[in-house]
């Protein structure tokens, strides 16, 4: 099989200030489903078009932001080979036992030099709702809310992203689809393990471990418009959009969950092959790269994070 090693973003765990408000936002508005609530109060959510147990984990805390993001690997043995490579690179690796999150097998985890925890796992139970696989309809359970199809990617902010770039390319076998270079250095990288234009992205930022957004895949530009209708109808705080990214070409809206964590709904984007060259952007054109129609960054893009 052609696609080996790291397959895709599996799940992200976010901190929220108000759990009932967060659950309502992610289920009724984004269109996810609650799978279960764990004994420690963490809530596990998924899109109906995903097979695996969950893709979003919400943890009640007194600050908003990012706990961790986990990628699924193709084979159980990949966990051992990646652990060896990560340790050889110089990052200490720890182990999370199977079942620490319901439905998820053993995980390995480590800290990036940008201050973000990343994990790998192989096993995930499947959970309902999920797509049927024999004579399947386009959906089994009728989509609701913004009709999110999957947790797609995340953008994280922190220092030392040149080191993240080297690590993801050399140790996890990702490719860099696009990058922004400013006169004073690397500003941003979009990394992919797959044929998506990005699976994870980083922006250089002085404070470590910060979270810019988690993105949900929508089917079409029409669905992005429908999402915009929902944002206004329910008075959800909007950052920017509907608009388009020059980088990845995705059609997009940035908005905020009830704890101030930024979300994105995202449609389109080009297909990436691992032999494609890296697309590059410079300081004069980064505005168009980030927001293609506005052609400039908004005040919040580089400064508003949780």
């Amino acid at each position: 099989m052609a696609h080996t090693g790291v397959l895709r973003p599996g799940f992200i765990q976010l901190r929220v200030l108000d759990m009932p408000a967060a659950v309502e936002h992610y289920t009724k508005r984004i269109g996810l489903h609650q799978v279960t609530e764990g004994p420690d109060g963490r809530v596990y959510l998924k899109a109906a078009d995903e097979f695996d147990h969950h893709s979003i984990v919400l943890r009640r805390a007194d600050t908003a932001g990012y706990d961790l993001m986990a990628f699924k690997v193709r084979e159980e043995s990949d966990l051992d080979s990646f652990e060896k490579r990560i340790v050889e690179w110089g990052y200490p690796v720890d182990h999370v036992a199977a079942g620490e999150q319901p439905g998820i097998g053993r995980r390995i985890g480590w800290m990036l030099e940008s201050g973000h925890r990343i994990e790998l796992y192989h096993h995930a139970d499947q959970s309902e709702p999920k797509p049927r696989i024999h004579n399947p309809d386009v959906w089994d359970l009728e989509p609701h809310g913004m009709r999110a199809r999957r947790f797609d990617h995340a953008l994280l902010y922190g220092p030392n992203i040149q080191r993240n770039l080297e690590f993801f390319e050399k140790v996890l076998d990702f490719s860099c689809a696009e990058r922004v270079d400013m006169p004073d250095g690397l500003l941003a990288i979009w990394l992919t393990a797959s044929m998506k234009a990005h699976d994870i992205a980083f922006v250089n930022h002085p404070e470590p471990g910060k979270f810019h957004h988690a993105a949900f895949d929508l089917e079409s530009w029409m669905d992005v418009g429908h999402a915009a209708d929902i944002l206004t109808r329910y008075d959800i705080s909007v950052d920017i959009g509907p608009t388009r990214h020059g980088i990845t070409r995705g059609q997009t809206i940035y908005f905020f969950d009830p704890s101030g964590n930024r979300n994105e709904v995202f449609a389109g984007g080009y297909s990436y092959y691992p032999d494609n060259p890296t697309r590059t952007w410079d300081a004069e054109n980064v505005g168009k790269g980030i927001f293609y129609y506005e052609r400039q960054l908004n005040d919040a893009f580089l400064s508003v994070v949780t």
Partner: protein
Amino acid sequence: MSERYTITVEGSGSADCGAGERVLVALERAQGFGRLKNMPCRLPVGCRRGGCGICRARVIEGDYRRDVMSRAHVTSDDEADGVVLACAIYPLGDLTLRLEPKRLGKNGRMAEMSQGGK
């Protein structure tokens, strides 16, 4: 019709705010109508939900109701001192406040910088 109150931003101007309305949202509207004309810059607006800390302010006078806001930006001591995130408070009367955004220092740590619009 719900009660309406006046939100004064020290040195910048004032805004009309409904009792159930986020103070920051009333300030955004007032700036759009040109009523914060002495504010030297764009009002700092981020998540509008108490998480990002961009709209940190100090209430100088007046009573308000508060939503939960991130402890990364408003500590218990801050809270006792009248420091708030303007997006996560609702007026119970006329309010006077001063914007006190945090700015990143060169070493990446958050350093407080008063920006009163004077």
